[in-house]
């Protein structure tokens, strides 16, 4: 019983001082939609986010990239306070949506979530009909008073999510009868139908074939006129194609954020370069 204490070099948690927004070429020069200030997050004792500060500009597409488990989903879910449903979690710092704090004071969480649409990493359609899935947001938010309006909203949302042609003849059958990729597009349609002004998408195309992926990318491109979009993706080409700004996360910290074209061509940090050139992650 005289085992040596485990001699393991402690890898320091990289805590890259985030680049002050003012010095970044892109994001800060535009109107701000979402801003995080020194935001940290814990699942129990496990720290998942480590002092994130960033600015997400209005009506642009921002991509979050980084290796698996680096905290992209956690940060995304912190913006609409989804994480607080998980018992034993806590946070520090703040996130603001159009200047208003998401966490401090008397925040109307329901109202906040109405303004933020979310597409989850794992598709989660309700065990209801396709129509009722898409109509759920408008119904709880009282968006469509007349049946015809609701029908129209459901159709346009399904069209936007590139699903209409496949389901128009079976709107009133169960959503669970759809394929995995169709279910994910249904969840996109459902989020759109609630008419949010920020859209958070967690790997929306990970289960889709190239054609559907392309449709989703076109959709994102079209939507950025009206929406602020944040998209998490593992697909570097996709980030480069659809986003205006890219944030690179690594082990719970934000390593670098900037204009997508600059970040992919001339990254400032070595870790960013290593990741985008595929040397790790």
């Amino acid at each position: 019983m005289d085992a040596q204490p485990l001699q393991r070099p402690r890898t320091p948690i990289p805590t890259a001082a985030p680049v002050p927004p003012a010095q970044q070429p892109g994001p800060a020069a535009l109107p701000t939609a979402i801003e995080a200030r020194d935001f940290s997050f814990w699942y129990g004792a496990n720290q998942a986010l480590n002092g994130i500060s960033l600015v997400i500009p209005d009506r642009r597409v921002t991509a979050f990239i980084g290796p698996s488990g680096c905290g992209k989903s956690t940060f995304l879910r912190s913006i609409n306070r989804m994480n607080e449903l998980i018992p034993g979690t806590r946070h520090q710092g703040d996130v603001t949506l159009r200047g208003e704090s998401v966490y401090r004071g008397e925040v109307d969480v329901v109202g906040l979530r109405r303004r933020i649409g979310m597409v989850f990493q794992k598709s989660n359609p309700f065990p209801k009909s396709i129509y009722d899935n898409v109509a759920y947001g408008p119904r709880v938010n009282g968006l469509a008073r007349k049946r015809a309006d609701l029908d129209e909203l459901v159709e346009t949302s399904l069209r936007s999510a590139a699903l209409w042609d496949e389901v128009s003849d079976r709107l009133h059958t169960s959503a669970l009868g759809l394929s995995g990729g169709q279910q994910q597009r249904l969840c996109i349609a459902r989020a759109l139908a609630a008419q949010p002004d920020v859209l958070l998408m967690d790997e929306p195309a990970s289960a889709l074939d190239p054609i559907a992926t392309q449709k989703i990318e076109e959709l994102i491109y079209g939507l950025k006129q009206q929406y602020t979009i944040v998209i998490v993706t593992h697909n570097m080409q996709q980030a480069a194609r659809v986003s205006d700004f890219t944030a690179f996360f690594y082990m719970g910290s934000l390593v670098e954020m900037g204009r997508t074209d600059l970040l992919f061509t001339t990254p400032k940090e070595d870790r960013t370069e290593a990741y985008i050139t595929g040397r790790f992650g």
Partner: protein
Amino acid sequence: MTAVGERDAAPAAGPPGEEAKPAAVRAAMRWHQSSRSDRAWRRLLVGFGLTIPVLLVGIAALLAHGAWPALKKFGGGFLTGSQWDPVSDAFGGWPFVFGTLASSLIAVLIAVPLSIGLALFLTELAPRWLAAPIGFATELLAAIPSVVYGLWGIFVLVPFLRDWVETPLSDRLGGHLGIFEGPAYGPGLLSGGVILAIMIVPFVSAVSREVISAVPRAQREAALALGATRWETTWQIVLPFARAGLIGAVMLGLGRAIGETMAVTMVIGNTPQVPHSLFGPAYTMASVLANEFAEASGDVHRSALMLVALLLLGITLVINACARALVWHVNRGPGGSR
């Protein structure tokens, strides 16, 4: 001798025919040749497995055999007949069937909202430090012996119901609504139903809690992210998702209420008649068996009681089977946990 017999008798080295078999087939054959102790073990296990079905069939057969004379004598009229008179050998089971079904129905009507509300509170609202002790306390209710419930019923529940519920209701509404009519004796259908309700709450709430917490968090998140309130999420997403399982929970409670004997016997009044109102004394199938079987006055009386027992067994079996089927449906069906 057949080829099979030859192969069986052949030693391990085997004739050329044996050699020709692929190794896998030979291995499989060896595996099937169990040793003597293996066979004995297997027989023992099969015996254990068959105990319960055999017991069930045995009980049913015994009851059917015992009930046969009464069935021959009264036929289907037994179910509708309301007279129960051992002195003149006139037996009709309807008051007991009615008493059992009515008291169980009252129990379910009271217990189900309470149990599902409790389950929702524990799963959706209460923080963990509160949910654990409350859940534990609810489960403790299930451990209280039936006779203790009965005593508590006699000394606390019955007087309370008589003075604070039955008398006021009968005074105010008795003239208008038949079910609230008549004198409030205390022991009666309502008392029986309420005590059953308290006794089934632990079971219904435990199953409901399990079913509700099996609703994936992703479902709640999807609704909340669309701007639904917690209330809307619970009513529109969580409960519909759990629907089939909740119906199973209710049926399970109903099954327990129907079979419960001691406590209900102590508070229901034990009068073999269809009560004039909610407050009148009644009788259940289980109670009449407990009270009368030991001193049954004659063969017809005993046989009639057997018939009551057979009916009780049939009703509980059907209800429990429905409950199982529904719970099973939740776990596999389209709305189930996937």
